[in-house]
């Protein structure tokens, strides 16, 4: 087990209203073994908009909540007031914006602004939440992104995350501000946003396309596994300036992901159109990989004109393998992911049910 430094008295979290942000806050409020060494001190959370405040307080009633744009220096000055010796977890970013220029403004500009303010506030360590998108897609289904990997960004989002990660790593300064990068792939788990709910709904309705053979692999990370990775990145000594893949223990074939979601939904009492589930079950319909390629081309075209279309973007990625190797993360951070696909998806489905988020008709006819 690597050496853990002293826990920080204050943690500052940006992107607090997001999927990971709320999972992190929940772990703060109710730590479990799976979360690793989540700091127990005070937590200060930056919400991007007022609408995120209730979600943040639901996850962590004791959080100190700030609201504002992560690129606004005045917002950040207040956020970092008296944050000397604090740990910053920088998770603010946009994934599916309306316009492509939001990527650079928020993901790059926001990161730059946070680094600057964190440095002048005397923050001890900054953990930056990056993304697999900075590394593009794997060239073969068996390929894995290694710890050291050249940036090969996938379109606008990837380019912005690559630029941000590069800035964070360059900003590492052992005497003053230490920076550590965590790179999560596709999330799942509680606190999920609408786009993941849409995924569940499509699977339940048998409308989620499995492109090509379904053998393409996806690394996924349960948000609580990611919390553990980020918590370790915030605490483990001598990892400043480094970057770590944080994912579940193994990548999953796309067909397994879809099948697991379908099975979990059925187990949890939802009506699932299993017979019509393309690709994931025998006899199901597969969609030719050509569809994904067409979508990818269209996505590139639109993005080159400054526009962004979420469905197209997601479809364009569906025939690709996006998988990483977490061996280095295990070794250097002592990271041991505890949640696995089926159990984690079950948690996500139950979380939706508890909040009255409709996923599919219920087998028992209830809402």
């Amino acid at each position, binding site marked *: 087990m690597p050496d853990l430094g002293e826990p920080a008295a204050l943690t500052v979290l940006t992107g607090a209203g997001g999927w990971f942000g709320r999972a992190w806050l929940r772990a703060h409020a109710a730590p479990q073994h799976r979360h690793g060494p989540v700091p127990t001190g005070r937590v200060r959370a930056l919400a991007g908009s007022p609408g995120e405040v209730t979600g943040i307080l639901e996850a962590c009633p004791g959080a100190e909540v700030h609201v504002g744009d992560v690129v606004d220096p005045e917002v950040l000055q207040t956020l970092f007031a008296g944050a000397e010796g604090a740990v910053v977890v920088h998770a603010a970013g946009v994934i599916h914006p309306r316009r492509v220029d939001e990527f650079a403004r928020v993901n790059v500009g926001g990161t730059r602004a946070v680094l600057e303010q964190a440095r002048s506030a005397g923050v001890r360590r900054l953990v930056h939440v990056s993304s697999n998108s900075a590394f*593009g*897609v794997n*060239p073969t289904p068996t390929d894995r992104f*290694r710890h050291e990997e*050249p940036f*090969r960004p996938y379109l606008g989002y990837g380019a912005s995350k690559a630029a941000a990660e590069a800035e964070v790593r360059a900003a590492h300064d052992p005497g003053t501000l230490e920076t550590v990068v965590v790179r999560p792939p596709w999330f799942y788990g509680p606190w999920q946003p609408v786009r993941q709910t849409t995924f569940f709904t499509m699977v339940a309705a048998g409308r989620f396309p499995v492109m090509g053979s379904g053998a393409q692999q996806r690394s996924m990370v349960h948000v609580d596994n990611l919390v553990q990775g980020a918590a370790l990145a915030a605490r483990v000594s001598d990892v400043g300036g480094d970057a770590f893949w944080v994912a579940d223990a193994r990548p999953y074939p796309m067909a397994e992901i879809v099948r697991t979601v379908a099975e979990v939904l059925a187990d949890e009492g939802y009506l699932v159109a299993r017979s019509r589930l393309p690709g994931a079950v025998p006899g199901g319909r597969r969609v030719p990989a050509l569809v994904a390629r067409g979508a990818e081309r269209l996505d590139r075209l639109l993005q080159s004109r400054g526009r962004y279309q979420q469905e197209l973007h997601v479809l364009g990625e569906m025939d690709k393998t996006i998988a990483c190797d977490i061996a280095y993360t295990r070794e250097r951070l002592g990271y041991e992911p505890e949640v696995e696909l089926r159990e984690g998806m079950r948690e996500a489905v139950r979380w939706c049910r508890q909040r009255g988020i409709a996923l599919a008709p219920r087998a028992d006819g209830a809402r």
Partner: protein
Amino acid sequence: MSSYDVVVVGSGPGGSVTARECARAGLRVLVVEEGERVEPGAVPAYSLEQMRRQYRNQGLTVALGRPPIAYTEAACAGGGSEVNSGLYHRPSAELLDAWSREHAVEALTLPDVEPWLGTVEDRLQVQGRAGELPPASAALARGAERLGWAGLDVPRWAVPGPGHPEKQTMTRTYLADALEAGAELACGSRVDRLDVHDGRVRGVVVAGRTVTSERVVVAAGAVQSPALLQRSGVPVSGRGLAVHPTVKVVAEFAEDVNDPADLATYQVKEFAPALTLGGSASRPSLIALALSERGWSVAGEPREAWRRQQVYYAAIRSRGRGRVRSVPGFRDPVVTYRLTREDLALLRSGLARLMHLLLAAGATRLLPSYAGAMTVTTNADVAPAAAAMTRSRAALMSVHLTGTLPLGERRGGVVDSWGRVRDVTNLWVNDASLLPDAPGINPQGTLMAIAHRNVDRLLRGDG
């Protein structure tokens, strides 16, 4: 001309193993070789002169396609073993299992092949390097260590010599053994066709005259063997040609790295077998060649810059396949290759990883070898430089040709699990054509062990 027990067409590793084993078994053996015999060391390694004397078509062969892939075949006594780098890899159990499964090959698991690998290793004196890595290899090792990527200095068939280690070749080992055991070698003799009648081969036709033989073993390489069978009326599609498409980068360092007489034997295996990164021959002429692929003038390059420059490569296991077609009236077969989308993606990825590695190794400037390539000096340049390598711009090459006559019991296969041609009772194939796929490593060691295995079966007569 007298009659033989065995005529072996080709004196490369497959042919030499066959000839030696047959001669040692007391058979009358003739080895027919199209190229000339050049004593090892008589011409500088990787030189134009070597291309002239020891390569087919002076090394100017190309598989047509989009993009075309330049490839090389040896044409000399000893075949590819005379001109290659002599790097030796054992095949993995997974690779042999996959081949056994996909092509229904009998007795091709690692335990089956292992004894033969041992025989080959002993004879070729395969050994690792003693002492420090030379600079071009050291750069790769340094980059790999910094990135935490696995790699190794690949063992080589070599014996210590004055200055550079002397690479082992067929003319120094198996072919010499064969001749010592009584085999005859006819150099400068091209086999026009095999004399096949009623499911039997009677001999080989050289310069219009038939040399008769009880058995014929074709070992002319993955391009020439299927072409010869096609010319002889044996129904062979010529499909299945597998290569290791390779993209190159010229790396410039602050210090001298280039040893024109040798190449880097270190290989990065982190992404193997799909992707291998390594060093290529880097004589000044080859550096100029790599630079000219970019469509740039080399006029601006300082004349002595080559000492600080070295050519490195990223080679992939390709999903694409090629085809060899013998065309009436043409002496040389037409070779085509279809690179898949996935191959191109893997090549781009390989190029990116190679450049990342070389920057980590301290390269100050990288010049990817494709048309219109940008110069790379920082990590931020890597992605655009890799992405810009499109089909129309790529300049690819390959050695390691295999796959045109895969062994196995699969229906429609031309040869059986032991290399015997199904429709012709006394005809065998025993060279790299038999390997079902490009293995992601230098295939010569694997091929020689399989050749041993096959000829053993042939001699025991239950084949």
